[in-house]
């Protein structure tokens, strides 16, 4: 039994060589299709996964003030009301917004000194210098991301001057620079104390951008949020809502992606089918001859199955490897901008790429199965025909 299967394997391998043109066409086509497909899929999955990480770390509930349907600064007096709600553990203030430096926009975040010690764990995302401490409040000390550090050519110990919206100058002192590794999150970020951010943005007295609410460990954030429903003009954002919003951002692009995927799949099947037709007569004759010699129908199916699996897996695996390298190591030039729409992608960080088992399996299924079907079904049909007829029709 083993020898027979070894013989059939050997014959399959040789078919790849004999039907050289067909093998080459299939390999090249499937390779290109898989490379594009996998680069898009891995990048999209990476961005979604990255967004999940971000949202996981967000406060349990983010409280924002809505005035005339617009998002407006929230008065810190709400803190006492919020803290009084059953289930609330802590509430911290946060001010954040955008500042223009040259043609680019960066993110300024002002952190509540009381909240700096709330999250426990080592701060390993600093490459040089240190992170903020409560004593930095009002001092102008900042930690900057790589994008800003490179754009302004600053390092720890340097001072920088930023123009605010009200066109006054603000001097800041760099005490830390975020690492390359964290730059997917921090590249465009400048972190300072809450007072400094409020001063920079000229926030109205006693207001901040939002309030970060943390619930007690035994509480469900949605339940706690429901207890705050009586607060007028307050928008409460929990993790699910944030996640849905961000998934929709990549999901819309994903809609384009799904269309591309479908078109590629159709193209792949058409090419596989046309190749089956091209070698059809030769293959039909061969099947008739093999059956004459005593190859069973199952033997013939096994030969064609192995042949198509090898070609399929070679093209698919290599394509996915190339797609992964293209996205993970070269930042997917051309594709990233298409996938992310009108966002720009600074070169200071690597695209998050996620080659999940699910995606890899999906691509294998979508690419290899049509190839196997277009190879084995015609072979099976020929194998169940009388050998004499198969050879005669092929000759005709």
């Amino acid at each position, binding site marked *: *039994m*083993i*020898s*027979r299967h070894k*013989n*059939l394997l*050997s*014959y399959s391998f040789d078919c790849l060589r*004999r039907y050289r043109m067909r093998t080459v066409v299939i390999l090249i086509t499937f390779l290109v299709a898989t490379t594009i497909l996998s680069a898009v899929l891995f990048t999209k999955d990476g961005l979604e996964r990255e967004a999940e990480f971000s949202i996981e770390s967000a406060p349990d509930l983010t409280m924002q003030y809505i005035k005339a349907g617009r998002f407006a600064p929230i008065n810190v007096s709400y803190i006492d009301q919020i803290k009084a709600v059953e289930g609330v553990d802590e509430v911290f203030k946060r001010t954040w917004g955008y500042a223009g430096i040259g043609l680019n926009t960066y993110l300024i975040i002002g952190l509540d000194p009381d909240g700096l010690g709330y999250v426990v764990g080592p701060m390993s995302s600093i490459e040089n210098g240190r992170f903020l401490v409560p004593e930095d409040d009002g001092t102008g000390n900042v930690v900057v991301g790589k994008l800003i550090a490179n754009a302004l050519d600053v390092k720890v110990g340097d001072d920088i001057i930023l123009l605010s919206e009200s066109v006054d100058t603000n001097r800041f002192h760099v005490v830390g620079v975020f690492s390359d590794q964290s730059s997917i999150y921090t590249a465009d970020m400048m972190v300072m104390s809450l007072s400094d951010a409020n001063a920079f943005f000229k926030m109205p007295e006693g207001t901040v951008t939002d309030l970060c609410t943390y619930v007690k460990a035994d509480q469900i954030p949605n339940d706690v949020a429901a207890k705050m429903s009586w607060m007028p003009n307050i928008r409460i954002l929990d993790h699910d809502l944030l996640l849905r919003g961000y998934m929709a951002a990549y999901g819309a692009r994903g809609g384009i992606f799904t269309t591309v995927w479908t078109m590629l799949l159709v193209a792949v099947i058409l090419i596989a089918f046309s190749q089956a037709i091209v070698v059809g007569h030769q293959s039909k*004759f*061969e099947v008739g*001859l*093999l*059956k*004459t*010699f*005593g*190859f*069973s*129908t199952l*033997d013939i199916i096994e030969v064609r199955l192995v042949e198509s699996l090898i070609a399929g897996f070679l093209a698919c695996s290599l394509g996915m490897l190339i797609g992964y390298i293209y996205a993970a190591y070269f930042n997917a030039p051309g594709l990233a901008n298409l996938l992310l729409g009108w966002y720009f992608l600074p070169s200071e960080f690597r695209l998050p790429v996620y080659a999940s088992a699910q995606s890899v399996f999906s691509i294998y299924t979508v690419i290899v199965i049509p190839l196997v079907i277009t190879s084995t079904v015609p072979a099976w049909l020929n194998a*169940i025909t*009388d*050998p*004499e*007829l198969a*050879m005669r029709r092929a*000759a005709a």
Partner: protein
Amino acid sequence: MIEIKNLNKTFNLGKFNETIAVTDVNLKIRDKTIVAFTGPSGCGKTTLLSMIGLILTPTSGEILFDGDNLMLTTDNYKTSYRKNNFGFIFQHINLLTSYTAIENILLPLYSFDMEPKKYEEKAYEWMKTLGVYERANHLVEQLSGGEQQRVSFVRALIKDPKYIFADEPSVFVDEQTSKVIYQMLSSLRDAGKTVIMSTHDPDLLKIADEVQRMNAGRLVGQQQRSP
């Protein structure tokens, strides 16, 4: 012994291009003989040969090999029977052009549960006998018609089959190869094989133990050579 009872074959049955190829053939073929079918082109020789060789399904009738009616068996059984007992020599030779001579010869052995390479020596011996040993590693398209037919002979014999089916074995070959074929077939019969062939060649008909004449799909005459 092979017994053929009421064998019929109609192509495209029930369609506008229906063709009756073989009609009501009844025949017994003794073992260790050469039986030749002869007749005008299109009389059904190849069709009959293919049916007896189990590579074409009859429309009706029975074919018994040593008493077993193989028409009642499955496709797998027929395939297995062919594998273990039959060797084929085709009119159009039917070698795979992208293989060498030796690869074509060993091809039938790939369906067996053994290493084909074990039969290489035997193949070379046969090739020497038939005068194509030097061409063993040449691609088929590099061989002449006569050489290809000799290679196809070796392919048919490599499994040491009990029955050899030869469809017009001398039609596309030169005189020298024809002589080799005559000698080959005679010696096979002498070695205990049963040879069933279709031919127009008068020299091949001379070596046959039994000649069956066909016309319009029917057996119309029989001639037996006295022992």
